């Protein structure tokens, strides 16, 4: 049961962190939550379809289909988080006057749907293979429920914690969360691509498993938050650092794109009519 708790908690936490952070951003961006149910449903449907067709997907791309699809999903989420950071920093710099509501809705919904596809399919597969196929259903379901419960509780605290901040601080904090989560995801994507022989797999750069083992609870939680890997290969470290730099650059672009707006109403009008 403990392993079910840890695995489900890790997956749920990965998704819940993204969802809660984006929900807090969404209200700081002045959007209502009507977009959430369709995004959740799309994500759940996607996760189910992915899990059901996993066998066919795995066999595609010379047997590396699953790794490639996972990497693509992770990289797409990283890109969407970059876009979120641009939007959040625009709002941070020029509150209420530089909003792009339609684009924001699209980016937030797509990010959440994809995060659910990725984490939901993992949970479904775990429960299916260890619970249903291995016949350990009570144990896996109880463990899963405990893991999911703790994950959702943490999410609730994070969401309301972010909401206690002012809109601008909330956006700043969310952007830094997105930065770290995105970097972790691109590092995981690098590992998948290395497993699919699409990126070079070097010797691990270091090994911190003695300090924090990957399979321990702190290790799994760190993996959920920053994509912790005890013995990462060079490509992973490179992708992690690259994503961090890109995300910071995205935040800079967000601020730069609206630097004149607060003092130039004409620019705001043009900006809005272009949307």
């Amino acid at each position, binding site marked *: *049961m*403990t392993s079910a*708790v840890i695995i489900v908690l890790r997956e749920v936490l990965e998704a819940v962190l993204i969802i809660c952070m984006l929900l807090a951003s969404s209200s700081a961006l002045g959007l209502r939550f009507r977009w959430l149910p369709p995004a959740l449903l799309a994500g759940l449907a996607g996760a189910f379809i992915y899990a059901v067709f996993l066998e066919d997907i795995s066999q595609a791309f010379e047997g590396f289909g699953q790794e490639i699809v996972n990497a693509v999903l992770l990289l797409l989420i990283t890109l969407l988080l970059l876009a979120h950071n641009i939007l959040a920093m625009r709002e941070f710099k020029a509150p209420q006057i530089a909003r792009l509501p339609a684009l924001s809705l699209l980016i937030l919904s797509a990010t959440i749907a994809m995060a659910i596809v990725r984490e939901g399919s993992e949970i479904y597969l775990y429960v299916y293979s260890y619970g249903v196929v291995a016949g350990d259903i*009570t*144990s896996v379901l*109880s463990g899963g*429920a*405990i893991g999911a*419960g*703790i994950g*959702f*509780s*943490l999410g*609730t*605290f994070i969401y*309301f914690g972010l*909401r206690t901040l002012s809109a601008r601080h909330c956006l700043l904090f969310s952007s830094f969360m997105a930065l770290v989560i995105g970097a972790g995801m691109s590092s995981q994507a690098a590992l998948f691509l290395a497993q699919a022989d699409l990126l070079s797999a070097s010797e691990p750069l270091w090994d911190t498993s003695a300090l924090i083992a990957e399979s321990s609870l702190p290790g799994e939680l760190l993996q959920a938050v920053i994509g912790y890997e005890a013995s990462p290969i060079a490509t992973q470290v490179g992708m992690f650092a690259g994503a961090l730099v890109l995300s910071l650059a995205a935040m800079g672009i967000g601020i730069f794109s609206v630097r004149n707006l607060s003092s130039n109403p004409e620019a705001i009008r043009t900006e809005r009519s272009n949307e």
Partner: protein
Amino acid sequence: MTSIRLFLTLTLIAIIVMVSFLSSLRGYRESMLEAESLFDLQLLEHVKLLSLLNPELSSAGYARVVEELLLPQQSDLALSAEMRIAYQVFDPNGALVLRSVLAPVTQMTPFEVGYRDVNFNGYRWRVLAIRDPERQHWLMAAQRYDLRYQLAERVILEAVVPTLLSIPLAALLIWFIVGYGLRPIRVLARAVHSREASDLSGVELEGIPKELTPLTQSTNDLLRRLQSSFGREKRFAADAAHELRTPISTLKVQIHNLQAELAGNATNAEAIATAADLHQGIDAMGHLVEQILVLNRTAPDQYMVQFVPVDVYALVRDVVSAEYEQILQRDQNFELEGASAVIKGDATALRSLVVNVLTNASKYTPQGGSILMRVERVEHAGNVGAQVQLQIDDSGPGIPENYYERVFDRFYRLDGDRHSSGVSGSGLGLAIVKHIVEMHGAQIALSRSERLGGLCITITFRAFDVDADTGNQ
């Protein structure tokens, strides 16, 4: 907009889930460790029992296999099958003399006293080896790890699962209890929301919780201040208008006299024109003052309502004959359609209403244009003639749809003072009409006139059935 109920429910459930799940998890891990030592103890007891057997009864070199005993109950059998223990007995020379069916023919663990984890028969086993101090026999008992684990987990989950299942119930209870706790806020909100616009008296509610008392007190305080300032504003407008009537009448008489004097002196043409403008200005001021007075008199909270049966058709005809001169002056074509239709209302106020809609239409309809008034009984909710409709169409420029709400505001005139019609007015006419319509519980709607292309005002009253009313009395 954050909901207090949602916030409290979610955070409370999150706290309960966090605390109870973490303690369940801790309890699970502790219980699993405890179960391990219990199973170890069970192995020890088995070995002790084995030591009571006399292995010398078995001939040396021949390993006797102890068959599983059949237990009477099927369920006991299943449990025994899960719990079963493999054991071996070796003589002092290390030869196997006794073993259970499950045990291998080779020794399960080296001849060393104590517990050890070993693999055989494709599973991982927990083995205890002990040497009989008297006979120097080696006694070994072993249990499969996976079975120990499953059995322990099944027992412990029996305690964990109810905690998990109780969470939805707790969530439901919290949702209802928080809702119940917030009920006074809803009651207060409803009490404030449901009152009439004119009702500015304090909110009196019984059993208001002490957290809401400051809010209720400040609201009541605010309402009191609002009421007295409204009262002052109304009294001022009414008093000022009333006081202005006398000097305006004096001015009218004096301008009349001045114009009569100037008329005798034909050389002073400029002065005559100025005097005519002045006369017009004084008339406009007089009209404005009268309108302000009517507006204040017809305000719902000021008006002493005296409802009597009124025939709207007759009233319209009456008003038209009084105001016909204005229509004639502007060379407008007027038509009245319909038939007698009785409503219950205030005759003076209704006259004011008809005068205002008619002069409004005449004012904004260009020279030579048309005005059509219609009074008819119409069907409502399947009752024929349940309502009386007063409709006035004109061929004027009409009002753009997005201004329909605003034209009822006091002193609001389309395009401000630069009204495109070039007509002077007080901007109070439609405000007065709306007051009177509300006073009678009627409805007013503006639209584009289908027949004349200008504005169409439709006022719908509840019809008054003379016979039914007499019957009731």
